[in-house]
């Protein structure tokens, strides 16, 4: 009986040893990152000092380490869209913000992105959106990329929609988009085509202004 008990206790010791190692690894990654100075950021973006302060306080409170990785980003974004699956779109959004492509968003990236979206010129915003759609960063949006984006957006809606989502709805959406944007019908949309097409759409221009007061 004692031997049995002994072997049980030895087994548990092994388990704890393994978890200790994992903890060590975690600690090594908890390096905190500090952003550039406030003046520099103010110069680079279109925000005032107070706005930057408010933004940074919120950012630092949520991510004390100073960086956001993709998992956290997906998690946060999923909180806003609980009905469906926001992880795919969050992935593309993360890539759009992560201009340096190193897998994490620092405060500067965050603020730059926001500055473009909220305080930038129309052209800036459209460029940003183009980069969001252009998944592989080759300068062209082709049908597959667009379909991916559209499907990701529809995923966020979830299952319970009215009218019910049918399988070919994303495809139709993509077709409409390409009809509008692809002027020379070569199957891809370039940045210029995109910008021109959007500027011609008055409704879109009006809608863009609506988002200026978010911050």
């Amino acid at each position, binding site marked *: 009986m004692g031997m049995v008990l002994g072997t049980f206790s030895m087994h548990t010791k092994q388990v704890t040893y393994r978890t200790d190692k994992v903890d060590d690894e975690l600690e090594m990654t908890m390096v905190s990152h500090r952003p550039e100075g406030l003046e520099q950021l103010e110069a680079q973006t279109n925000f005032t000092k107070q706005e930057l302060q408010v933004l940074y306080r919120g950012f630092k409170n949520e991510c004390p380490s100073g960086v956001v990785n993709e998992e956290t980003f997906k998690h946060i*974004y999923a909180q806003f869209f609980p009905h469906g699956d926001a992880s795919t779109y969050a992935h593309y959004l993360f890539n759009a913000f992560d201009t340096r492509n190193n897998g994490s968003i620092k405060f500067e990236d965050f603020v730059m992105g926001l500055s473009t979206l909220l305080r930038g010129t129309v052209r800036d915003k459209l460029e940003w959106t183009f980069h969001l759609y252009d998944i592989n960063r080759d300068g062209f949006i082709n049908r597959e990329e667009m379909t991916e984006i559209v499907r990701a957006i529809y995923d966020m809606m979830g299952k319970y929609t009215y009218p019910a989502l049918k399988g070919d709805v994303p495809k139709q959406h993509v077709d409409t988009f390409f009809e509008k944007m692809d002027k020379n019908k070569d199957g891809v949309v370039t940045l210029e085509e995109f910008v021109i097409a959007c500027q011609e759409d008055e409704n879109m221009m009006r809608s863009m202004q609506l988002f200026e007061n*978010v*911050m």
Partner: protein
Amino acid sequence: MAAGVATWLPFARAAAVGWLPLAKKNMPKPPVDKKSRNDEILFVNVSGLRFQTWKNTLDRYPDTLLGSSEKEFFYNEDTQEYFFDRDPEMFRHILNFYRTGKLHYPRQECIQAFDEELAFYGIVPDIIGDCCMEEYRDRKKENQERLAEDTEAEMATDTPLPPESTSRERLWRAFENPHTSTMALVFYYVTGFFIAVSVIANVVETVPCRPLKGSKKDLPCGEKYTLAFFCMDTACVLIFTFEYLMRLFAAPSRCKFMRSVMSVIDVVAIMPYYIGLVMPENEDVSGAFVTLRVFRVFRIFKFSRHSQGLRILGYTLKSCASELGFLLFSLTMAIIIFATVMFYAEKGTKGTNFTSIPASFWYTIVTMTTLGYGDMVPNTIAGKIFGSICSLSGVLVIALPVPVIVSNFSRIYHQNQRADKMRAQQKVRQARIRMAKKGTTNAFLQYKEEGGFQFRDNDSALCLKNRSSFEHQHHHLLHCLEKTTNHEFTDELTFSEMCMTESVGYRTSRSTSISSQQGLSTSCCPRRSKRRAIRLANSTVSVSRGSVQELDTLQVHKTSIGHQSRSSLNARTEDLKLNCEDRDFTAAIISIPTPPANTPDESLPPSPAIPGILRNSRCSFTHERVKISSL
């Protein structure tokens, strides 16, 4: 939604620009936020300790007090800060919740105080972080158990019976709580005595007595003095049967009573006798009958009604059922293993005792519990080795669950002690409340005597000035009540006089009271001379329950009365009057809490509370005039 996410909302909304090219329809207009964009620092003053925080921080949780517009109610324009008259130490934790998103429970604080603070600030306790959740839950459960026990204990035995209780209810009360009446106590002791007699008789029955003349064999006393033992047995069984039937009659729920453990024990204790009476003197059946007599020993369990300790022990065993079960299971496992091993180890030996595995069970049990009778011993070396391993492990296995059982027992025992302490404290508290209530009455009566409800000349005004505005208002309120009901407050002596001379239902004359409404000075004189009686609907008296009944009427408001009475008692002592008599107690302790409780007004339907108080006042033991009414 997790609160910290509120920080990211502007970002998510900004990212919505990415949907614009794809949008099939126009975007809706965004909500207009009228508040200023700039973040500002808010000042929060909690009982003098000033906290500062960003407005944004508080806005993170909009469904709490600090995060919503409810805090505007606490805004002080002069000092430009939010003032809360609460515990500043606790507020630190509340504010940290806003800052970090995690609520921590401070271990040194009382769980109830913490819960109250959370309730005030509108924070749900479920968001306590994992680090503190276990501690919080444990203490909360402990506290709830304690409260449940206390209310249960109060409600169970000490509550006074309403006067309309039937004889059945009274009988049941007498059985459950023997010290309520002398008869019950007598019965309690008589049954205890007879249980003891019965058990002793059972034991002595089997002792060998000197044999009858002419016979050499020693007889057990039971067979020598058959008649004597039979008479004793009959007497005991009669008492037990009578008791059981009485309990059955008095029980509020007969089915539940019959299923309870004590009643089953009662039945098992007396059944053998009746079966023995009924059964014929048959050889075959008498063997079974002898077995049945074993059940008579169960009478000893009837003692558990008489002994608190036995009940605790029984309760402990019940609550440790899982540990005991584990002990049994592990023992069984070990026994089987070792018995098998020993059997096969000793199989070769000639003339061995280990004839089969079940036969080895006996050896294993005796060895594991370190009894070691020695009737079975291993002879082979392997058998001896395994035998020693068996005895060593036996000690371990038995020692494991014992601390758990012991700690359970200790906890239950302490709970019981606590119940007794609580009862003692209750008595003290009730005595204090009684004195305070008397004070209120006397104050009011004296107030009326002096015609206090209108301002007089300076002499009596001296007396009046010493009363606080609170007392003035309180007395005015009682006065209004008198006017409303058209009856007056009076004291016990006068009332009992009235009752003796006249029948119940004496009405006061109305003219004086009506005239006093116009504030005439003549109103006080009639009152001083003639004390009117309050008409009572039911005025039965029960003597011995006076002090305890107060518990009944006030126990619902016990918690609120408790701490308020203490603090206001301290505050009031400086209010003693200069030249007024000392019988005029500091009043108004009970006046604070819940209004609907105990109006003396008999135009209301007589609730159980009212006669309770009335009865109590009648039985109070001091010579001061005791008031009948109270608030």
